[in-house]
């Protein structure tokens, strides 16, 4: 057992913390959220300069050779400071789809740009009709003229409009490379027939619905050698889940700290709020939730390299537990701040919004409890 960071990782975490804290003081963060794309390209480049985007990729692809642990360290800092960036979308989802699903040539062609931040990807997979299930995909790729013609609609694609290239899941035509199944195709964001209507998410992030109207791409757009990419998708999204869990845990700790501070300074009835035993116990519960969440972040992160069943079960356990805990902690944070907690200029409500969006992304607690139970029957 080893719960300590390596010296290198600790240094990395500290420098990420310094930079993220510097880039996202609350007022500056709110100003960034109000811009067209919801983040500043300069901030993105600062973090790229620090090696954040390169951290999880192999050196052969322009990366720094890290992995899930580095992603966890980054996510916790993002959650703590409510940082909004297309990082999950591009590096974790898009980048790992290429990493796990692409051929060696595709990885080496695409990932260096992702790793240095000059290229952004997004994963266009979710469709409303499927709710949170990964398998049903109704977007289709027809074979035509030595390429594919892609049609369909994808919902709530995180930072889809900021992306240079979309990784689109689609049903493949029968008869090629063993045929059928779900494939992942790289589609340029500005390809003819791609419609992207961007909107804000409650946490101040951006997403879009992607309309694919007979979009033509070459055969080389298909990631990997063909065949079913569902396993890849599942693995990629488990990485996304671990990232979201770490982000939520970082956010929870921040809510805990600021609420604790508030209870120590705000007085009513001639005493600090923190002196009321009813509230002390509530804060102990909040603190306990934070500690448990930290453990479950490890559960999700450190099982990402395990076999598929173990990995997915750990991811679902963490998503269900942290999803509920993050919402609960943030609701407590708002409540214990009283009227102040309801205001735009105080971060605690924004942490609650982040927790709600986290729950709406890749499946809520109910979905993951069911997935966990299903995977457990086989175990």
């Amino acid at each position, binding site marked *: 057992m080893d719960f300590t960071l390596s010296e290198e990782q600790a240094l990395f975490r500290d420098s990420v913390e310094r930079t993220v804290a510097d880039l996202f003081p609350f007022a500056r963060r709110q100003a960034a959220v109000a811009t067209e794309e919801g983040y500043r390209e300069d901030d993105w480049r600062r973090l790229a300069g620090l090696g954040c985007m390169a951290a999880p990729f192999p050196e052969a692809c322009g990366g720094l050779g890290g992995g899930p642990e580095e992603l966890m360290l980054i996510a916790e800092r993002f959650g703590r400071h409510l940082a909004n960036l297309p990082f999950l979308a591009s590096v974790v989802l898009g980048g790992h789809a290429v990493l796990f699903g692409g051929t060696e040539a595709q990885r080496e062609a695409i990932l260096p740009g992702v790793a240095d931040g000059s290229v952004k990807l997004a994963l266009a997979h979710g469709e409303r009709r499927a709710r949170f299930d990964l398998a049903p995909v109704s977007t289709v790729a027809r074979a035509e003229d030595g390429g594919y013609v892609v049609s369909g609609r994808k919902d709530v694609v995180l930072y889809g409009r900021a992306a240079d290239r979309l990784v689109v899941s689609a049903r493949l035509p029968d008869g090629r490379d063993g045929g059928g199944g779900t494939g992942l195709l790289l589609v340029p964001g500005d390809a003819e027939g791609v419609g992207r209507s961007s*909107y804000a998410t409650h946490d101040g992030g951006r997403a879009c619905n992607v309309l694919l109207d007979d979009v033509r791409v070459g055969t080389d757009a298909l990631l990997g050698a063909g065949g079913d990419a569902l396993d890849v998708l599942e693995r990629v999204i488990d990485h996304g889940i671990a990232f979201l869990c770490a982000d939520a845990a970082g956010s929870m700790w921040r809510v805990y700290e600021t609420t604790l501070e508030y209870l120590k300074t705000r007085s*009513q009835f001639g005493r600090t709020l923190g002196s009321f035993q009813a509230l002390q116990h509530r804060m102990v519960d909040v603190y306990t939730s934070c500690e448990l969440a930290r453990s479950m972040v490890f559960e999700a992160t450190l099982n990402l390299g395990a076999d598929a069943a173990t990995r997915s079960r750990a991811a679902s356990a963490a998503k269900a537990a942290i999803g509920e805990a993050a919402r609960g902690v943030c609701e407590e944070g708002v409540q214990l701040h009283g*009227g102040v907690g309801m205001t735009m200029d105080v971060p605690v409500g*924004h942490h609650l*919004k982040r927790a709600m969006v986290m729950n709406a992304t890749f499946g809520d607690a109910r979905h993951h409890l069911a997935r966990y139970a299903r995977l457990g029957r086989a175990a």
Partner: protein
Amino acid sequence: MDIGYDDDLERFRAHVGSVIRDILPDDLRDKVRREHAGLTPSDMRRWTRILHDRGGWSVPGWPAEHGGPGWSYERQYVFERELALNEAPPLNVFSAGMVGPALIEFGARDQKRRFLPGLANGDILLCQGYSEPNAGSDLASLQCRADRDGDDYVVNGVKMWTSDAPHADWMFGLFRTDSSGKKQHGITLLLIDMASPGLTMAPIRTFEGGDELNQTYFDDVRVPAANRIGEEHKGWGIGKYILGMERFGSAEVGRSMGMMRRLKRIAAAEPAAGGRLIDDPHFALELARAEIALREVELTERRMLFGPGGPDAMGFEASLLKVRGTEVQQKIMGLMVEALGSCGAIDAGDMRPGGDNAEPLGPDAAAHAGRVFYNLRKSTIWGGSTEVQKNIIAKAVLGL
């Protein structure tokens, strides 16, 4: 025993229900269906006027001599429930349920004549000036001063969290007129014209983007002593009387019942696992749990209101209705957001389309559910927070 309506009450229910459906403007019903999103103070003015013109229905609890219909408690209860179930806006609580009754009980004859008609027909909108930066849960520690000067009071200080202040014509507020004794003593209830010189307001945005909150500043604001309700220094009792009425209404059982119906409609339309969300056993159990929790509050409210002694016998145990009622309401709103799946993340209220497809972004409810969910976090904070209500129950009911 009978937990339902008897024949007479059922006939009354059917009658008022059909009238409400007749007089309710479509645009107001649509806003209520959007969980009150976009329902403005001027909508409330209009709705109050419509109900008023129907025979004083805007003030169902007032006696006939003051323009009310003179209904029994049971009929008032049934009427308010019918408003919610027919997706009509609620009554204006400040006017109909709080200040009106206080004026009828404690007001001078001249005050009744000046204010009651306007409160009943919507010409006068009120805002509540109780809370201050340092007087929230501990309301009695309020500091905003009203010093007597001839026939006037001169008011100086700050009120915090004043909902809808810029739309209000008058504020009913508690002010410090004496700080020599116990803090509950020396508080006076005044009605203040919002157009008074020296009164200014600054908006405070709520975190979901709403604009209902304000801070109100008083700089030598002159208020005629004739606008005082009750005796000088004795406003605390009346203020608490008014707050007690607020606590009762704020269980909002009717509104939650309307929400529950709409939640079921959404769950029946949302896709899940090749079928409908409402058929998903996990979601269905959660719906059932919320529905039962709401029924518990509904029946407990009925039992407390119409048990032996009637509503007048109801004491501090009513606090539990506010605690549980708001909890259930928040739960239902949370389920509405969850029902939307990944579209629950969309903040359509702040949408920037700027893209090139004009299709709706997601299910209709995505346009309001999230914002209303966030906004309703307030319901366990205002009107006496959940914690304060529990303190009241512990002390006044349990004797701890």
